[in-house]
C-alpha cells in the first residue's frame, strides 16, 4: 500500500490540496451551513440594533447618521412608552395566571391517574394547533356576542388562554424527567403527600416552572395577532410598531426592541452560567 501511494503523492501536489480542501469542506459542511443559518437569523436583528442609533427624524428606514439621542430619551416618541407599559402589565398578569393554572394541569397529567385524560390532552393541544388568527377572531366573536368591550382585560384573558398550553407542555416535560423514587423515598420517611410535594416535588420541578413562566411572558409580550383582535383601543408594544409601520416607526421602538433583546439574552445566559456553576459546585 505505502509503496504505491507515496510516489503518487509526490507526483501530484496540487490535486492533493484541492482534495484536502474538499475533504475539509465535507467534514465541516454542517458547521459551515450552521454558520450561514446563524447569519440569516441575525441579519434582521443587526438591522434592528443598528437603526436604534439612527439619527432619524420620523421615518427610520434610511440611515441618516449615528446618535445616542434615542437611547438617552427612549420615551421621546409619543405613546411608545405607554404601549410598552401596557405590554409589561399584560405580560406579567398573563404569565402569573397561566403559570399557576398550567402548572396545576401539568401536575395532574404527570402525577395522577384520572378519567378523561385523552379529552384533557386534546383541550391542551388544540389551542396550539389553531392559527392565531382563528383564536383571535373567535374570542372577539364571543366578546361581541356578550357585549363586552375589548380592552386591557380581554387581552389578559386571551393571553392566559394561549399561554396555558405552552406552560403545561413545558412543566410536564420537566416532571416526566424526574425520578419518581425521590418522592417515594420522601413518603417512606413519613412525609405527608403535601410535605412531599412542597419539599421534594416542587423544588425539583422549579426550573421547569421558571422556564414555562419565561416562555409565557415572551409569548405574551411578543403577541400581535390575537392582541390586535381583542384589544379595542388599548395599544401594546407590537401593536404600536405595526400601526406606526405605515407612517414610519420612531427609532425609540428599535431602542426598546434592542433593550428587551439584551435583557432577555442576559437573563437566559445568567441562568445557564448559574446552572453550570451549581452542577460543578
Amino acid at each position, binding site marked *: 500500500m505505502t509503496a504505491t501511494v507515496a510516489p503518487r503523492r509526490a507526483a501530484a501536489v496540487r490535486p492533493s490540496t484541492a482534495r484536502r480542501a474538499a475533504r475539509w469542506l465535507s467534514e465541516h459542511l454542517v458547521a459551515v451551513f450552521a454558520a450561514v443559518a446563524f447569519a440569516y437569523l441575525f441579519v434582521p436583528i443587526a438591522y434592528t440594533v443598528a437603526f436604534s442609533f439612527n439619527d432619524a427624524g420620523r421615518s427610520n428606514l434610511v440611515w441618516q447618521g449615528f446618535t445616542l439621542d434615542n437611547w438617552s430619551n427612549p420615551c421621546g416618541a409619543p405613546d411608545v412608552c405607554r404601549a410598552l407599559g401596557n405590554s409589561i402589565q399584560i405580560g406579567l398578569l398573563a404569565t402569573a395566571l397561566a403559570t399557576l*393554572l398550567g402548572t396545576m394541569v401539568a401536575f395532574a397529567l404527570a402525577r395522577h391517574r384520572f378519567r378523561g385524560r385523552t379529552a384533557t390532552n386534546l383541550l391542551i393541544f388544540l389551542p396550539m394547533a389553531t392559527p392565531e*388568527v382563528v383564536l383571535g377572531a373567535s374570542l372577539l366573536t364571543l366578546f361581541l356576542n356578550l357585549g363586552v368591550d375589548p380592552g386591557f382585560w380581554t387581552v389578559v384573558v386571551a393571553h392566559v388562554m394561549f399561554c396555558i398550553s405552552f406552560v403545561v407542555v413545558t412543566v410536564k416535560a420537566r416532571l416526566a424527567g424526574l425520578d419518581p423514587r425521590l418522592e417515594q423515598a420522601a413518603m417512606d420517611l413519613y412525609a*405527608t403527600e403535601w410535605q412531599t410535594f412542597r419539599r421534594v416535588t416542587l423544588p425539583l420541578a422549579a426550573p421547569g416552572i421558571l422556564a414555562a413562566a419565561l416562555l409565557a411572558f415572551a409569548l405574551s409580550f411578543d403577541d400581535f395577532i390575537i392582541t390586535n383582535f381583542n384589544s379595542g383601543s388599548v395599544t401594546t408594544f407590537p401593536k404600536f410598531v405595526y400601526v406606526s409601520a405605515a407612517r414610519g416607526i420612531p427609532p425609540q421602538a428599535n431602542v426598546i426592541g434592542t433593550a428587551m433583546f439584551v435583557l432577555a439574552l442576559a437573563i437566559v445566559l445568567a441562568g445557564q452560567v448559574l446552572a453550570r456553576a451549581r452542577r460543578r459546585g
Partner: protein
Amino acid sequence: MSSLGSVAASTAQAGGVTGAEGAAVPRRRRTPYLLLLPGLLWLALFFAVPILALGSTSLQTRVPGAELGVYTQTFRWANFPDALREYSPQFARAFLYAGLATVLALAIGYPLAYAIALKAGRWKNLLLVLVIAPFFTSFILRTIAWRQVLADEGPVVGVLRALHLLGSTGSLTATNVAVVAGLTYNFLPFMTLPLYASLERMDPRLVEAAGDLYANGLTGFRRVTLPLSMPGVIAGTLLTFIPAAGDYVNAALLGNPGTTMIGNIIDSRFFRVVDYPTAAALSFLLMAAILALVFVYIRRAGTEELV
C-alpha cells in the same frame, strides 16, 4: 377566574394537611380533578366556547336595512361555499406560502439543529440560546427589518443584481419572494428547536454501529439518523406550518395586494368591512383544513408525543 384557581389550590392543600388515613382515598381521587378544573375551565370558556360562537356567527346573515355589523342567526350554510369560492386564491396562496416556508425552514433548520446537537460540544447551550434569541426582539420589528434588508438599496438586492440573478431594475420589495422569506425567517426557531430535541436525544453510537456495518455516511444518515429524528421533523413542520398558514403580518408588511393570504382577508373582513359571517366562515374553514392536516400527522406520531 383567578379566585377559582386559588380556591382549588387551597382546597387541595387543606385536604393534604388533614387527610391522614381514612379520608385519604377519596381525596386522592379528587385531587387531579381539582388541579385540572381551573385551567380546563379557562380553556373551555375562552377557547372552546369562542369556537362555537365562531361557528354560530358563520351561519348568520345581514339584517336588511339595519346598520353595519348587525347580523341575525339564519343558519345560512351557503356562507361557507360562498366564502370559499370568493377567496380560494387566498386560501391556496396561504397553504402554498406556508408549505414553501416549511420546506425551506426544514432545509435550513435540520443542518442547524444537527450541528448544534452533535457537533457543537461545549458550545451547545450557548448556540441553542442564540437560536431562540430572535424571539426576544419584537416579531413585528424583525419583519420590518426584513423590509430594510430586502429593500432596493439593501445588500441582498445588490448582490443578486451583481450576479445577474435579478435584472438591473429588479426588486424584492413587495414580492412573494419577500413574503416567503419572511415567513421562513420568523418560524425557523419553531422548526429548529424540536429537531434539536430529537437529535440531541439520539444515541450517537447507533450511527457508529451503522458505520461499523459498512454503511457510508449517506446511508447511515438515511437509515439511522433521519428515522430517529422523525418526531422532531413532524413537530417542527407542524409548529412552522400552522402559524405560517394563518399569518397575515408578513404578507401585509412584505408583500403586495397580489400576495394576500387568508389571514389578511379574515382580518380585513372583521375590521374594515365588518362582515363577521364571512370572516367567521373563513376562520372556520382555515381551522378545519389545518386540523385535518394535523390529525393525519398525529396518527403517525401519537398525541402524547406532540403535546
